């Protein structure tokens, strides 16, 4: 294998680093209308009237659309496989405004200035209602976020809009109460994680136009082009066959763009006016009306015996869907599946959950997708029970961690076919010099140096649901075209899949021309989310290459006038095994396939996996804590990852480093906050701080690979896993420094300093 497991440069790298115009905004047609939105200042209100007369008179304004102009079919903007588990609870424009910033009117004008002016001149009368902002009070609250009768859930997720319920569920394995009663130590704590913004550098953006066939073409910064096609069809009440979606290069997603956010508005304008239209979300809009991580409150009960064997975990999670249920019923599932399953020897486990509607911004998909919240709660609780047992937090994990060969009862009963979690722990301890550093050292300046640990897992694609397809064509002269429907969002999947194809076809990677995504031309793929691309679409590449090789061999054999059993293919030529001098080159086969044949050489295969094998990780944080100011400085972070076979060493490492840093932000300062009226307070990069390069020191990454038999080349996923360890590892380190457990994220310097004062 020449390319798999090598640090291959991304195929699009040089165009990105030289600033080529490859993103949505760089390609907007010159005559496109500029679309701006009038947004609700209220978190809960009904529109009683809209007067757009004055606004329509602004020179350059072409159209102003309100709820009266918009289609009336409810839909979800969650990018999921149909039938979506997320309830159909939205309209493009609704009379009922359910969170601050909900769209009231769409303005399209020749210039941004004209559109902005018109937005200011629309006169709206609101019937303002009291907003429901505290998700802990939402269930059965008299304030209903979705009182409408046409609310519907396509899947049995327990949705009940008359109770503010987006979803509810419960499962139990064994007898939890009996096990808890039999434990020597039980640790109970309620954890609270906040909504976080993905803060990808490129905000939401889309442009639309009618093509030469009169079809709606949507060029958008999205992770889910095929889902966008279906969602737009639902929302606009037009046929799916009338829509084409194109994804150019996109400036980061992290799950944010697994929802339809900006696409609807220019699409409606183009449908109404026939003209190209574009929308570029401001950073403020991206912050206030994006698709953030769900805020959750989780109560964990962990029971263990005196020797540190964890026997039972009971977990209840309450999730804030916000105003709309996108990804609400699905994120909640990962809270338990991907936390409880870290522990292989549980005699009993229970998970119950409620996902509730409130008048805050609707949630969405953010890297980790519920696993991040659940793993924080469970891992923090496991560290606490270790402390109660006076046990090293690594030791309790070594004693209880899931191992290869076990059946994961809290993970759909899937077998654990590949797991190097034990080696990850060992390696992380060596790299961190854990035994020397644990638990703490007090420095001369009074600062405390301490360490903390956490484990994590995720899935690899959505088992039995999502699919990836690819097509590979042999062209004249013997180069290949690789068509993919998954979405490279900077992660490098176009390159990673080309690496696999090049190895399977035994050719130079430059001989693979890769192209994605255009729903008219790319083979169907559910999109890049749920850590699926390398594992699911990668397997489709392997299968497609096998089919294509077969066709190449057939063609070569027929050109040589022998049977297929008599020849072999080495990537460069098909040759007769018994007489290697008799051969045809791949170039000759390519040319020949283009002349007088009934079939060009092309193969396309799809792949969907019945399992979702988890990648695993151990994270360790070393912090410097100033006990007087409470400031925490993460001076070193070690992440050791088992993602199965590493396909691209550089890209896997950068994924890990980037995920860890996002996780550090979540642990220490990222926190979406609302005013008493329900408007977001930190709606900019000035107020919502993400880590700068001064906020970190070293991040050290290593890989301890297992081999996943169901994955391409033995690979599993990596993209989401890597955000999950920082919060629990840092909270553990803070405990080891201060003796205080913090259960609410982010843990701010203020909490620590005042906590120590009150100790």
């Amino acid at each position, binding site marked *: 294998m020449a390319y798999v497991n090598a640090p291959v440069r991304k195929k699009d790298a040089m165009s990105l680093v030289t600033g080529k115009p490859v993103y949505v905004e760089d390609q907007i047609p010159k005559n496109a209308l500029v679309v701006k939105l009038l947004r609700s200042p209220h978190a809960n209100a009904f529109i009683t009237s809209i007067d757009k007369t004055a606004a329509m008179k602004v020179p350059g304004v072409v159209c102003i659309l309100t709820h009266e102009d918009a289609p009336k079919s409810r839909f979800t903007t969650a990018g999921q496989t149909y039938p979506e588990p997320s309830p159909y609870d939205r309209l493009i424009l609704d009379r009922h405004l359910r969170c601050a910033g909900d769209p009231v009117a769409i303005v399209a004008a020749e210039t941004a*200035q004209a559109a902005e002016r018109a937005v200011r001149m629309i006169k709206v009368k609101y019937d303002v209602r009291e907003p429901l902002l505290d998700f802990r009070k939402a269930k059965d609250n008299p304030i209903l976020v979705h009182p409408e009768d046409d609310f519907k859930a396509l899947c049995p997720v327990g949705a009940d809009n008359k109770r503010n319920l987006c979803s509810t569920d419960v499962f139990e394995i064994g007898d939890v109460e009996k096990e808890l009663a039999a434990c020597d130590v039980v640790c109970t704590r309620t954890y609270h994680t906040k909504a976080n913004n993905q803060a990808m550098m490129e905000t939401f953006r889309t442009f639309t136009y009618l093509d030469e066939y009169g079809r709606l073409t949507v060029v958008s910064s999205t992770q889910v082009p095929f889902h966008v096609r279906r969602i737009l069809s639902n929302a606009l009440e037009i046929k799916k066959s009338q829509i084409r979606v194109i994804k150019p290069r996109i400036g980061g997603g992290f799950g944010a763009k697994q929802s339809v956010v900006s696409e609807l508005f220019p699409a409606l304008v183009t449908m109404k006016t026939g003209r190209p239209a574009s929308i570029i979300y401001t950073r403020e809009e991206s912050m206030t009306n994006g698709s953030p991580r769900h805020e959750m409150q989780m109560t964990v009960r962990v029971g263990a015996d005196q020797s540190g064997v964890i026997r039972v975990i009971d977990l209840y999670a309450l999730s804030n869907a916000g105003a709309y249920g996108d990804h609400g019923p699905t994120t909640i599932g990962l809270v338990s599946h991907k936390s409880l399953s870290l522990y292989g020897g549980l005699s009993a486990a229970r998970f119950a959950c409620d996902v509730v509607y409130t008048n805050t911004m609707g949630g969405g998909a953010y890297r980790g997708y519920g696993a991040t919240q659940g793993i924080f709660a469970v891992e923090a609780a496991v560290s606490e029970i270790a402390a109660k047992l006076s046990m090293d937090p690594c030791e309790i994990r070594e004693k209880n961690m899931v191992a290869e060969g076990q059946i994961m009862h809290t993970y759909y009963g899937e077998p654990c076919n590949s797991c190097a979690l034990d080696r990850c722990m060992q390696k992380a301890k060596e790299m961190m010099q854990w035994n020397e550093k644990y638990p703490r050292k007090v420095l001369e300046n009074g600062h405390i140096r301490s360490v903390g640990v956490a484990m994590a897992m995720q899935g690899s694609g959505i088992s039995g649901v999502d699919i990836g397809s690819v097509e590979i064509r042999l062209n004249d002269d013997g180069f290949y075209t690789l068509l993919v429907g998954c979405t490279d969002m900077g992660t490098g999947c176009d390159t990673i899949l080309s690496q696999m194809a090049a190895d399977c076809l035994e050719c130079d990677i430059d001989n693979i021309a890769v192209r994605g995504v255009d729903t008219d031309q790319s083979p169907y793929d559910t999109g890049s989310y749920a850590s699926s691309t390398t594992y699911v679409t990668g397997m489709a590449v392997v299968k497609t290459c096998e089919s294509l090789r077969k066709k190449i061999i057939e063609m070569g054999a027929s050109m040589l006038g022998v049977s297929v059993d008599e020849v072999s293919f080495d990537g460069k030529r098909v040759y007769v095994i018994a007489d290697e001098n008799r051969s045809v080159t791949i170039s000759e086969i390519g040319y020949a396939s283009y002349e007088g044949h009934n079939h060009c050489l092309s193969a396309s295969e799809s792949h969907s996996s019945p399992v979702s094998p988890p990648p695993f990780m151990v994270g360790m944080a070393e912090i410097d804590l100033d006990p*007087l*100011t409470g*400031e925490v400085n993460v001076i070193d972070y070690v992440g050791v990852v088992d993602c199965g076979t590493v396909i691209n060493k550089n890209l896997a490492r950068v994924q890990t480093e980037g995920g860890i840093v996002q996780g550090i932000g979540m642990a*220490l*300062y990222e926190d979406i*906050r609302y005013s008493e009226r329900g408007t977001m*307070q*930190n709606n900019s990069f*000035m*107020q919502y*701080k993400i*880590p*700068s390069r*001064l*906020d970190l020191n070293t991040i050290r990454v290593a890989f301890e690979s297992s081999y996943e038999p169901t994955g391409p080349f033995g690979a599993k996923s990596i993209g989401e896993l890597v955000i999950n360890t920082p919060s629990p590892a840092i909270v553990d380190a803070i405990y080891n420094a201060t003796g205080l457990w913090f259960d609410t994220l982010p843990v*701010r*310097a*203020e909490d620590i*300093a*005042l906590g120590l*004062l009150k100790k």
Partner: protein
Amino acid sequence: MFTAQNYVMASSLEEAYTFNQKKANAILGGGCFLRLSKKRIHTLIDLSALSLDKIEEFDEEFRIGAMVTLRDVETNDALRASFGDGFYEMVRHIVGVQFRNCATIGGSLAARFGFSDILTFLLALDCEVELAHAGRMPLCEYAAMKPDRDVLACLYVKKNGRRAVYQTVRQTKTDIPVLACAVSVLNGEYRAVVGARPARAMAVSFDPADPDWISKTVNAFSFGSNMRASEEYRRHLAVVLLTRAYNAIREE
């Protein structure tokens, strides 16, 4: 962002002053903070042609023009020779180099932001400002005034041997401060400045010989709560940072 209809390059300070008397007009500093406003400006007044972008050293003082950028004061050798790392410490946390290449000393002082690092540190030194009409006045007097329509031309920093130490706590390294403190000393006379309370920076003098100096000093300031911190934490931090700054200056 703001909108502006007209633009004038002022040819004299007096002309800038005249234009600035209209409430709809505004002086253009570096543009970094002005762009946060949604003001509808009639005329933008540019001071770029008035040679206010110089740092000049005289026997008794420095004169720093209003259009001098934060990056200029950060990297100026003469300021470093007189005040050590002081000016560098004052601005190093402010966003990034590109931002500091734009933002100006004049803009930072005239806005009198509560969170201002610059105002907090400079109040620890002996400074005056010069205004187009009001002339020279102590910085502490200027800082306490409500923003008015006069034009800030330059800042004077006395080279009288006063030493200052600047300490802050921030949520992230490039965020505005949760609390900003400076302590300075000249001939045994000590001064404490606290900014980002979150209200504007203020200076008080103190006598470290008094065993209660720290509580008395901290009690001289009012503190409040906002998104970044509570009043209680800020009060606690003031004790910690002023003590540290005092110890640092004593050890110098």
